[in-house]
């Protein structure tokens, strides 16, 4: 039987060095007695010699993470359990994957409790101002964690409060952070920290942020157990807040509505005037389009996407409907299909800003799928409702040729969406007898999986656009 006494400070590293050496010797877990801190004599055990330096052994990463946490648990058996698990992991590397294994589950439980205690310590330490002596301000706190976790928890404070000096006193040991150096010393009795005026402000905040109309003391205690309360300045308010909550909520509910203060009317009038001025400054057609509720599509879309381009443009390109990108930006043909369209248009020698670009349907139709929106084709009713806006745009722009990009536009402009591929590249007439050119929608090219066909179709699309060159503005 061997007895190992681990130091209070640097427990993990000391345990690791011993465990490494024991494992190399093939020492069985039940033959080692581990202690931390004071050396407790055991009649039947002899003190272990300092660990031999042995070659480093490899263990799964998970084991190191688990051991670093579990070693800070208050359970006296933790060292033995960890060493036993180390021996088991050494023969079965995949053991940690099995959370159903009793040994693994047990140590994970310890690690989880330590992890939670560390998290609560990060949250519930309350510093008090000691007053500055030099350029750095100085703070100190007394905290009682449930497990000896100071070494585990202190680096967080070092990262967070980099420009101040601080000490955290716990019953197990003390941490000091001075000029960027983190050190640990043996435990000191609870220090008498000076009163801090900021605590009154903090209590005011705590009292005011509480909503008495929704009292849930159990939910509070589940996350902020009573054992931490006596070191938190705000906790003293809790009993009173709970006791008066119901009567405060009742008073709010029963209070009769009051008359608005006199200034409310004046402010309301000013706001109304500002809104009117804003409305007056907007393009009236855009504003009316944005307010359109003729079909249900407006309910889910961000905004109506109006056409873009000069009035009197000789060419008017009509797509199907805005996509995800267009819906967000409020501009037509700016997404992936729009970029392809721009490229093709430039290759065909037509400047986009000389043409008018719009869509047959002005709102984006989609089904939400997780974090994405899947485009849905607009139905005949939606296309018909939106034709009113397209007609208005055509009347305003008066293009020489309207270009239908894809079946939706074709349906909107001719009333017939059939046989798009047979009709592409041809000149037709719209319902009201205006010249119409038919081609595909660029998104058709984007959807082709085969890169060869993609290139072919892009070339054909550019060819189609070239045929419009004579009609385009110089």
């Amino acid at each position: 039987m061997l007895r190992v006494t681990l130091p209070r400070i640097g427990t993990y590293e000391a345990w690791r060095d011993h465990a490494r050496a024991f494992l190399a010797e093939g020492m069985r877990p039940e033959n080692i007695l581990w202690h931390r801190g004071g050396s407790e004599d055991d009649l039947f055990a002899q003190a272990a010699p300092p660990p031999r330096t042995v070659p480093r052994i490899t263990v799964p990463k998970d084991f190191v993470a688990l051991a670093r946490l579990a070693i800070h648990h208050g359970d006296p058996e933790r060292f033995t359990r960890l060493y036993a698990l180390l021996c088991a992991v050494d023969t079965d590397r995949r053991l940690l994957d099995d959370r159903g294994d009793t040994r693994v589950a047990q140590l994970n439980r310890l690690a989880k409790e330590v992890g939670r205690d560390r998290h609560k310590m990060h949250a519930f330490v309350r510093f008090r101002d000691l007053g500055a002596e030099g350029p750095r301000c100085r703070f100190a706190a007394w905290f009682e964690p449930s497990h000896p976790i100071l070494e585990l928890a202190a680096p967080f404070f070092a990262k967070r409060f980099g420009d101040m000096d601080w000490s955290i006193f716990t019953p197990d040991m003390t941490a000091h952070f001075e000029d960027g150096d983190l050190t640990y010393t043996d435990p000191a009795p609870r220090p008498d920290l000076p009163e801090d005026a900021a605590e009154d402000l903090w209590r005011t905040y705590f009292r005011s942020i509480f909503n008495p109309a929704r009292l849930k003391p159990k939910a509070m205690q589940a996350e902020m157990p009573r054992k931490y309360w006596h070191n938190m300045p705000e906790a003293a308010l809790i009993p009173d807040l709970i006791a008066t909550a119901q009567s405060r909520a009742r008073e709010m509910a029963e209070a009769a509505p009051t008359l608005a203060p006199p200034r409310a009317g004046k402010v309301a009038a000013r706001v109304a005037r500002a809104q009117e001025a804003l409305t007056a400054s907007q393009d009236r057609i855009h504003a009316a389009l944005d307010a359109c509720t003729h079909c249900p599509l407006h309910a889910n879309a961000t905004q109506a996407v109006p056409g873009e381009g000069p009035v009197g443009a000789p060419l008017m390109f009509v797509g199907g409907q805005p996509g995800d990108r267009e819906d967000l930006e409020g501009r037509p043909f700016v997404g992936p299909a729009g970029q392809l369209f721009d490229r093709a248009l430039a290759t065909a020698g037509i400047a986009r800003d000389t043409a008018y670009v719009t869509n047959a349907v002005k709102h984006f139709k989609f089904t939400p799928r997780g974090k994405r929106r899947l485009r849905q084709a607009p139905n005949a009713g939606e296309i018909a409702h939106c034709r009113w806006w397209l007609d208005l745009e055509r009347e305003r722009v008066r293009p020489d040729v309207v270009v239908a990009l894809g079946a939706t536009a074709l349906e909107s402009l001719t009333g017939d969406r059939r046989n798009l591929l047979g009709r592409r590249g041809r000149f037709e007439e719209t319902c009201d007898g205006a010249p119409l050119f038919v081609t595909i929608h660029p998104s058709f090219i984007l959807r082709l999986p085969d890169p060869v066909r993609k290139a072919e179709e892009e070339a054909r699309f550019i060819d189609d656009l070239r045929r419009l060159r004579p009609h385009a503005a110089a």
Partner: protein
Amino acid sequence: MARLTLDQKLAILSDAAKYDASCASSGGQRRDSRDGTGIGSTTGSGICHAYAPDGRCISLLKILMTNFCIYDCAYCVNRVSSNVTRARFTPEEVVTLTLEFYRRNYIEGLFLSSGIIRTPDDTMADMVRIARMLREEHGFRGYIHLKTIPDASPELLDEAGRYADRLSINVELPTDAAVRSYAPEKSPARIRKAMADVRLRKEAAGDKTHTGRRAPRFAPAGQSTQMIVGADGANDATILKSSTRLYSSYKLKRVYYSAFSPIPDSSAALPLVQPPLLREHRLYQADWLMRFYGFDVGEITANRPDGNLDLGKDPKLAWALANRHLFPVDINRADRETLLRVPGIGTRTVGRILKARRHRTLRYEDLVRMGANLKNARPFLTALDWRPRNLDAADLEARFAPQPEQLSLF
């Protein structure tokens, strides 16, 4: 009017801010001040530094810059027609409070919101100024959440995104019609456009420029929003559909549901009945099912004639009881998607099951150790040594019902 002390202002302006449910300090980049040149850190997962007796986490200093407001939203305690005491912080006061609270480890950072004073741009400019002072003058590396004013100018939004970890814009109510009737000055369309704008800016900041350098970070912890539940007549199906739309359209990190709560000096336009807090909880559960468990909003509310979630049991259990033909699930063979649908088994447990069963066949006791809630899961799964009895039993549903409470004598 007598000048208010800092303590009085803090009382008024934190009281006015408490109806915003969000207090999260999670997400975004990791920063620290180990180099000694500043103060603060963010760890990515957020810390709740205290809990109020309403069960809500206190992570950030959640305050209003001012509770003066020119808008008249019926549900809001700060509306222009309310008679609450008004106050206004100077930017310096907000900065001092944030830093002094932060140094004492009371908070993770600042959540700054404001009533609209003068114009949306004036208000937003003051808020941005506070964030800039914290970041640039004081080297503050803690968390900053700014509530964005939908009508503020794009330049201000851009600057806000550079200083803040998170931006949020509240949609306030689940339907456009409700926003129009309760918040007449707010426009649902402008709120949506503002959220779209935040998404576009955030995505643009993620792209590399043509020189290969990254654009400055924009709200690394993303954007969130809040919906008030129970102030209008919208049912849970409407609310959840609305949040599905928001998640998919604007890549929101979170939608917060806030059960409408009575406010001091409330408007006569509002219902007097407070919705049960449990409703809020069920909505969050459903929200989680949609985001992490592959559920569709239609599935969750399919069996509810009134479109509201069952307050008596959690939505996953309710779904499983209504779809018993899909169960029991063999814990040793089912794929991830199927395992995620078993009540009482969460994403973590599913991960553990998948890992462990590569090596051996799992038993009932293994599931206990892996953290499954077997009280709920038991009837819906099979393991090596476990077969549930009659899944079709008529009383299965009753077994999950809460214990009847004995009435007390009066």
